[in-house]
């Protein structure tokens, strides 16, 4: 029994990071109505840029390296929109999807070009897990959980308590109507991209601390984020949060029942089934509170 509870705990921690990825993806979908395939590359770039500031020649402490990394990732996210997606916005969502697939391939290979294809790590000394009543949690996992909760709490307060959040939610609800009401579209679009990039980068950094860095980390986790987005109903921020948690838990509990090689299949199968049978999301009832 405690074995399953331990898996559940691991699942919640992994899921909180997936939630960070999913929030940005679903916001972009909610406002711009297209699936941003290169969202995964923001995850990768966030992690690699942190590694860059953390290692020589910079050798900054971790918390200091994360800040410029997130800012630079936001710059990448914003320029994606400015140079590529904005000129294409009037077209078909497929055109945007093809462009984002091309862009993601480009950015991923740029990572390989700069930092090489090998596995990299932050080289933390292996630490003993902390024990809480028979369950083990590493210090990094605690950091993951608390950082995710911190970011998501800020998002919650921002979206519900500020005028900025209101304008964002209004735009996600109905772009034309929001524009008619005088909400500044360039400002909304900039904040969506910055939010999506910073959250993706934060998640990427946390994931890299727990596991390692490799050029494909973004693509793998994009699939999970996408499954979370679909679970929650595309465009629904709170749905994506729950979806992320669900994927994390399902994946980690799944390990108890079938070969770990199929861990990633959980997210794939979920996407496939959801698209076919519940395209509006499992939590479609929640659309009223997005």
């Amino acid at each position, binding site marked *: 029994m405690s074995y399953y509870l331990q898996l559940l705990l691991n699942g919640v921690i992994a899921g909180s990071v997936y939630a960070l990825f999913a929030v940005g993806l679903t916001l972009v979908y909610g406002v711009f109505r297209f699936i941003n395939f290169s969202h995964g590359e923001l995850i990768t770039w966030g992690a690699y840029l942190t590694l860059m500031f953390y290692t020589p020649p910079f050798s900054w402490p971790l918390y200091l390296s994360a800040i410029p990394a997130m800012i630079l990732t936001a710059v990448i996210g914003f320029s994606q929109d400015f140079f590529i997606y904005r000129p294409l916005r009037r077209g078909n969502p497929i055109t945007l999807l093809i462009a984002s*697939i091309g862009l993601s391939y*480009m950015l991923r290979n740029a990572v390989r*070009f700069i930092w090489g294809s090998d596995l990299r790590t932050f080289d933390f000394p292996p630490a003993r897990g902390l024990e809480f009543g028979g369950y083990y949690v590493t210090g990094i996992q605690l950091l993951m959980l608390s950082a995710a909760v911190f970011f998501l709490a800020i998002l919650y307060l921002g979206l519900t308590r500020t005028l900025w959040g209101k304008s964002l939610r209004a735009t996600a609800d109905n772009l034309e109507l929001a524009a008619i009401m005088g909400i500044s579209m360039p400002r909304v679009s900039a904040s969506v991209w910055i939010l999506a990039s910073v959250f993706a980068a934060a998640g990427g950094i946390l994931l890299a601390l727990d596991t390692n860095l490799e050029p494909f980390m973004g693509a793998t986790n994009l699939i999970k984020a996408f499954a979370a987005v679909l679970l929650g109903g595309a465009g629904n921020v709170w749905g994506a949060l729950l979806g992320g948690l669900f994927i994390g838990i399902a994946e980690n509990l799944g390990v108890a029942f079938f070969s770990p090689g199929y861990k990633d299949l959980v997210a794939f199968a979920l996407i496939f089934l959801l698209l076919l049978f519940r395209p509006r999301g499992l939590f479609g009832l929640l659309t009223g509170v997005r």
Partner: protein
Amino acid sequence: MDYILHVLILALIYSIFAVSLNLELGYAGLYNFGHVAFFGIGAYISALLSRAGMPVEGAMLCAMAGAGIAGGLLAVPALRVTEDYFGIATLVFAEMFRLVCLNERWLTKGPMGLPGIPRPAWIARGVDGLPVYLILTAMAAAGVFLFVRRLTGSPFGRALKVIREDEHIAQAFGKNVFLLKIKTIVTGSALAGLAGTLWAHYISYISPADFSLTETILVVLCVVLGGRGTNWGPVLGAFAVIFFGEAVRFLPIPHELHRYVAPLQGVVYGGILVLIVLKMPNGMIAEHRRNGA
């Protein structure tokens, strides 16, 4: 000389692959981002059968049939969703296929892949067989090209274009849209399976890594670069992409910089795809449309 034959064979196989995707993507407007799965299914079926002792010709036919059936089985549920969601559903299908190949070691030997896939008995092994294999591939490519040209020039092809532009109009004219789409995907998948089997028997070694998202991006690039919804576009695109990939090898690059070549090539491929979508959405050969519509 042998090297030129090798590049030509690769380009012809990719032409078949691109033409088959163009049937779905260019003519019917079905954005199949998991087309590489059918290339892979064809390759694996004929590799497994021929390694088990079946004559290569029979294995190739089984591979085409298998890929076509798999296409139909995917299409029936996947066509419930449209446009970008269809793209994602097919993309996810391709990744699931790759994961299964990676994990079912008893069948596919997992990441080690399947070595020693034989060529047809009448084609010599190694370099000596290249000219004959080139003729085989060229005949297959010409056959596929003529077949698809005939198909798209027929009422069937015109119906597909109507579906691409507006499904409801096609319905209003009494076309069974669902059935037409299924037929398109089955045909496209079988042809992709043909490309896959030609590739497997030529390279003689396959592994799950050969059927990743990278190959999907390459073949989409071939079609979009060459020109969607045209007969020659995907062929031209495939030759351009393969020749560019091979030409990079001849750049005078010092040995210690070699690790930069493949990533740089990826950056260029991705960049070209983005640039075409932005600046040249019709590709190198634009589709002929009356009334400038």
